């Protein structure tokens, strides 16, 4: 097992570095000019200004020199400065990550807590009304454009019914809890500040439902298909022949076997939420990585884009590793 993990980690590091190289090459072989994107028309029309700007950000060095500068700084734990925010990229990412982690985790838990039981019931009671409801919910979830669903939720629950708070992580007049983890739910518990906790939780409801919608469909679908697959295995027949209760057969014999594909898909979906909640964060003015990604991409802020790429690649690789390890826990045969 340890050797397995080490070799996987080695490959992961190589892949992450290759990923930054890919983004670096894409970013530098396409026509967009970061100097023009940043400076605006007036400043960009002044050649001296342009030259100084390019020199400052090493934009006039050859391609490979710039990539090696990036790697050298990376080795020192430095992701460089963001051109747009004029701050170290690492600080920016540290600043925005907690909001995204909080939202993605709540959204993912929501979809898993509803999706797995729904999928199991749909499979066990195949063709019943539960099955049809589950199918309908998952198809709608998968087919709704996130950005539109977010708008509809805001329009109904914030605009019309006024039972949900508006965009953002807290009320505009509220103060953030003292920073420990950056996760408002946890920090406010540490501070014993229940008003802030309630406020943060209320602000999480709508965006996490929106995030959960698509993932819910995916998880329900996979769980149902996988449980149906397992229901016809010999060991289930044996369990039934032994006279076990239907409940025990499902919980102890079918579910552990059926969960393997669900864990894979669920893990990837979680990685996707952690790194790709661009739409939801934009609409709910959520100060997270998704919005930072979008703004950096729009401004052709290459240092920031490279930093995000690295974070995204590393997140994916770690989650893939965790998925593989959880296989070993769910199915002892994997290690051999």
């Amino acid at each position, binding site marked *: 097992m340890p050797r397995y993990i080490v070799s996987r980690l080695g490959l992961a590091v190589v*892949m992450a570095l*290759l*990923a930054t190289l*890919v*983004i670096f090459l*894409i*970013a530098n072989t*396409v*026509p*967009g000019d970061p100097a023009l994107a940043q400076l605006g028309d007036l400043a960009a029309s002044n050649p001296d200004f342009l030259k100084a700007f390019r020199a400052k950000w090493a934009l006039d060095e050859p391609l490979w020199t710039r990539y090696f500068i990036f790697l050298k700084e990376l080795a020192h734990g430095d992701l460089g400065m963001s051109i747009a925010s004029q701050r170290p990229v690492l600080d920016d990412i540290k600043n925005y990550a907690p909001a995204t982690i909080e939202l993605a985790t709540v959204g993912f838990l929501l979809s898993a807590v509803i999706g797995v039981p729904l999928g199991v019931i749909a499979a066990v009671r195949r*063709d019943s009304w539960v099955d049809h409801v589950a*199918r309908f919910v*998952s*198809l*709608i979830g*998968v*087919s*709704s*454009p*996130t*950005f*539109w*669903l977010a*708008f*509809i939720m*805001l*329009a109904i629950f*914030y*605009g*019309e019914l006024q039972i949900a708070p508006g965009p953002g992580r807290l009320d505009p007049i509220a103060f953030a809890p003292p920073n420990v983890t950056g996760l408002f739910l946890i920090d406010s518990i540490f501070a014993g500040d229940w008003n802030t906790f309630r406020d943060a939780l209320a602000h999480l409801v709508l965006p996490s439902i929106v995030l959960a919608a698509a993932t819910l469909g995916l998880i329900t*679908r996979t769980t*149902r*298909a996988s449980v*149906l*697959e397992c229901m016809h295995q010999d060991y289930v027949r044996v369990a039934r022949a032994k006279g076990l209760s239907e409940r025990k057969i499902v919980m102890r014999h079918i579910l552990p076997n059926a969960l393997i594909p669900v864990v894979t898909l669920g893990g990837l979906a979680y*990685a*996707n939420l952690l*790194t*790709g909640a*661009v*739409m939801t964060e*934009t*609409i709910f003015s959520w100060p997270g990585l998704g919005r930072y*990604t*979008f703004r950096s*991409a*729009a401004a*052709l802020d290459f240092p920031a*884009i490279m930093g*995000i*790429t690295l974070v*995204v*690649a590393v997140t*994916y*690789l770690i989650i893939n590793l965790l998925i593989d390890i959880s296989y070993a826990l769910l199915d002892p045969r994997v290690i051999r």
Partner: protein
Amino acid sequence: MSVTAQAGVIAVDKPKSLWRRNFRRYGLPGIGAAIIVLWVLVAIFAPLLTPYTPELVDVTKRLQPPSQLHWLGTDMLGRDVLTRLIFGARISLFTGIVVVLVAAVFGTLVGGIAAYARGKTEEVVMRITDLVLCFPPIILALAIAAALGIGATNTIIAMLVVWWPKFARLARSMIIVQRSQEYVEAAVVVGYSPARILLRHIIPNSVGPLIVLVTLDVGNAIITFAGLSFLGLGVVPPTPEWGSMVSEGRELIEQWWVATFPGLAILSIVLGFNFMGDGVRDWLDPKSRRW
């Protein structure tokens, strides 16, 4: 054997369940196909379906609620929402289908060549697909589209870069199964060229799952394109496009009709492709126990 006999008995005993099963088999895919055909017709005959033009600005009529003159209301510039919706079907259908088809053809060829060549070629090609697949598609497409500049063509290019690897992966796994089959050995013995064996023998035999993925994926591509447009990277403004229409209406919570209807249009067309894709899967793979 006993299972078939049993199923037959049930079908005879309860004609209702036979009807239900037929609905399961043909009903939803049928509805899906009908939705798609309807949107294709709307896209083709767009100018005949509305008295307005999609770019016609009339500020005196801005933000009117749905009425007899404007069935779905008007937007901030007084343009008829229904008209823009009808014309928007063109670009959504076009981009969705083009992205998936081009990606499918390219990905299948790449995956096919990799699987057939084996050895180093296969290793290198598959590591490249792994590399692309380790990014969330929307972020990579976002970065590329932003770097290339705004415009439908650039957005389609950006999406293609992200889209082909999953087809390469699927094609490779299908072809690995096929390449050890006897008919391939027979073709080699007869002396056919590798290209001919790949294109005429192996790929046609592994096309089923690819068709399923293509059908299910068009909806996905439509949503992604609309999403990029929503973020301001898809089409250049006055062009009517569903994603950018939602974006134009996203601050207008009181004037809900501006953003709601284009979103419903996206939802309906994507549901159509998903219904049909499920049907195609059941049809091509009767063993699958998915919905």
